[in-house]
């Protein structure tokens, strides 16, 4: 009994951190039930993760933008526009993929710097500055696709980014139909995670900092092992890890590292937590604003690449509503509109929640009109939850 009481205590104390995981779990469980297990099938999960990719990377960038108390509405059509530019570069200018990808990412950075200039330097409210961007990039997509309409991308390497899977280890014949490299990577990731958890726990104890009690710690490891192991197994049963998932994991990992371990990350959260205090502490709020918008622009470009590659084409409507999905993902992931709070890993979960809703409701055959309303209700509930739990955790 005391074990259950302990679970309840840990849950209620960390409800903000665990809330979205629980929400994701509940949503997935419901859809698994209502679709007779189709939702949790290898094929569907693999598809779902690939669909999440282009929203997840935007959500990661958006999280940081919201952390520093701004917003970026231009990211959707910027992604769409840069996707079209990538298509044109490959189809009309015949540039190789190896040149196109860095070029597009660089253009994204540049676009982000322009937003940053308006917001940080000229003090234009971010909402307005990026709304202007929204309109401009919308026009830009229409302009570049005016003569051609949808541009089909014939490049196999480029299209693999959104549709391909990592190769398996050659020469292994056991377990046919199971992707061995995916299993191996999952196993390695889990082991690294365990080692890291134990090390950090030991270190915290040596500094007499608060840690989870041993049984709760084990419970946490068991749950995470089950989830990561489960996903790995499900993916390995289809085609293995897709390149999209690899890219998303790399992006989330990189941003997680930067935000939690580096001086830059700490400065970003300080600016979000209290800009005046940050400025007085010798942090240039302007420079941080530039950096965050530049990163947002780069990730928009990446999102555009992922989307164009997934559709194997650049369309005239690419990017529509991406910005709102990204903002929703960030908020569902626990970012606070008051600034200074929010994790990039949360944005990934938030994006998964939003795509799970779409995917699950599609499988159930629910009409698009109801889908929008359900997603809206979930977003409102997430923010309500944030507001309600904010004061509790003093």
């Amino acid at each position, binding site marked *: 009994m005391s074990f259950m009481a302990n679970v309840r205590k840990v849950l209620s104390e960390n409800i903000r951190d665990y809330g979205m995981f629980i929400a994701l779990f509940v949503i997935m469980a419901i859809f698994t039930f209502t679709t007779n297990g189709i939702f949790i099938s290898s094929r569907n999960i693999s598809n779902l993760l690939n669909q999440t990719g282009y929203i997840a990377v935007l959500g990661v960038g958006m999280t940081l933008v919201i952390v520093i108390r701004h917003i970026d509405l231009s990211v959707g059509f910027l992604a769409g526009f840069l996707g079209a530019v990538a298509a044109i570069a490959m189809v009309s200018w015949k540039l190789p993929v190896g040149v196109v990808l860095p070029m597009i990412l660089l253009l994204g950075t540049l676009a982000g710097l322009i937003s940053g200039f308006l917001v940080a330097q000229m003090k234009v409210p971010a909402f307005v500055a990026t709304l202007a961007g929204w309109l401009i990039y919308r026009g830009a997509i229409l302009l570049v696709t005016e003569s051609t309409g949808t541009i089909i991308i014939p490049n196999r390497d480029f299209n693999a980014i959104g549709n391909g899977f990592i190769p398996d280890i050659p020469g292994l014949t056991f377990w046919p139909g199971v992707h061995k490299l995916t299993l191996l990577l999952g196993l390695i990731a889990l082991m690294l995670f365990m080692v890291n958890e134990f090390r950090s726990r030991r*270190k915290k104890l040596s*500094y007499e*900092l*608060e840690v989870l009690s041993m049984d709760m710690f084990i419970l946490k490891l068991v749950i995470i092992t089950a989830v990561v192991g489960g996903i790995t197994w499900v993916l390995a049963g289809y085609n293995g890890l897709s390149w999209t998932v690899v890219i998303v994991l790399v992006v989330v990992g990189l941003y997680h590292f930067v935000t939690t*371990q*580096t*001086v*830059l990350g*700490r*400065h970003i*959260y*300080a600016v979000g*937590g*209290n800009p*005046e*205090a*940050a*400025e*007085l*502490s*010798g*942090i*240039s709020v302007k420079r941080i604003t530039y950096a965050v918008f530049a990163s947002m622009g780069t990730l928009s470009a990446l999102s555009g690449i992922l989307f164009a590659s997934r559709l194997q084409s650049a369309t005239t409507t690419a990017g529509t509503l991406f910005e709102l999905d990204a903002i929703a993902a960030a908020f569902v992931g626990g970012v606070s509109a008051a600034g*200074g*709070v929010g994790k990039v890993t949360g944005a990934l979960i938030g994006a998964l929640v939003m795509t799970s809703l779409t995917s699950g409701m599609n499988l159930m055959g629910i009409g698009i009109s109801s889908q929008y309303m359900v997603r809206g209700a979930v977003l409102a509930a997430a923010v309500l939850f944030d507001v309600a739990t904010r004061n509790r955790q*003093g």
Partner: protein
Amino acid sequence: MNPPPLLEMRQITKEFPGVVALDNASFQVNKGEIHCLVGENGAGKSTLMKILSGVYPYGTFSGDILLDGEVQRFRGIGDTEKAGIAIIYQELALVPHMTVYENIFLGHEITNGLTVNWYETIRETADMLKKVRLDVSPSMLVNDLSVGKQQLVEIAKALSKDVRLLILDEPTSALNEDESENLLSLLQELKTQGVTSVLISHKLKEVIAVADAVTVLRDGKTVVTLNAHKGEVSENVLIRNMVGREINNIYPSRTHRISDEIVLEVKGLNARHPGLGRDILKDVNFNIKRGEIVGFAGLMGSGRTELALSIFGNPFGFQVSGDLYIEGQAHSLRHPEQAIRAGLAYVSEDRKGNGLILIQDVKENITLANLRAIAHRWVVNRNEEVQVAREYRQSLDIKTPSIEQRVMNLSGGNQQKVSVAKWLFVKPKILILDEPTRGIDVGAKFEIYMIMNRLVEEGMSIMMISSELPEILGMSDRVYVMSSGRLTGELITAQATQERIMELATIH
């Protein structure tokens, strides 16, 4: 029997968590007089006026308010306005992008049923403006008027509501001499029309010029009410009553080891606030020696914080000119980052507003201003961070359950220690402390003083801005006094008295 006084406030006591702002204060204003309310910063003047104007409603304080002998229970600003009390704050409460006439009748518009009658409004406004002798068109935007004229618009607004008691909180602090004089003579003219005024002011000369009666507050208590017509009011009497406090020995002694080496020197510093369009510092020259605590005394708004900020990289974008030398080397500091590198540190007076990041924990706040010191190639070494935080927690005796506790959960005194720790971690040569003990209890104050003593004994120099005269006298080696953006005096502490400082601080 005499008619009852227009206003009587009896035995008002108001407590905030940890502080008694008003302690049995009484205040009485007779019909048709100009009554001045004076006192040091924190004496309780503003709190008393907030109670009178209903900002702190009935029930949040103890004591009675009587108007014309009748007990009042104000539940909000609306009630006091109905009773004929109008208060004009230091920060003007006009809507800048509305016209004069819209502002004057904001909240009590003249209507024909549903729609506003603008013709009548404008005509009435013209009358009101004549009354306050303001010669501008009613349809000017408030934004386009000078601060002095805006003040007159505020008074016109009050008059439009049939005011009986007009309260002005430091009305002349933002005005130049002509505007001030104009305002004061207006008050005297309104007096002949039957408007009673309460004037809160730091400027004793103008108090003496216009007051019929003066009430002095000190430490939340009413010290005395003086009648000007009986010759009871003079500068000396006022100052004595304002400060008349014993310096008790809550100030730990230290061995003074001041060298002659000047660590910080400022020459000809001028600053202008671009938003207010006003000079906030005028030709300021001063220096600080190694191992010295230099106190900066002055009343609210005298420019001490602005002086500190102008030196500390000017984060809020004043237009600053002047020369700054640190250890004899000229510096031009354009951002706090450069100031920190040059050896300065600034502990803000407003630790919640711009000192600390309340939602972050103790260790993150302590290391924020010098993260690079515990980072290798931009990656923060968390172990080192924990060590640093633990060291400061121990050496400053920060009482917190854990260094991972969020700062918002600490007491004021411990928050202040975190603030100090943060700035000690940048290893400054000169530590600027802006109101280092504001809002913290006596025990924590003493600890802060001990820390200051230890720091200067180790060779640091401290620039201490404080509104508490006993603190200035108890801790400083030397005192500069500021008034209206100027340095009006420099005193060796041994020769300084509270009276002398107050005299210099009220020079205008």
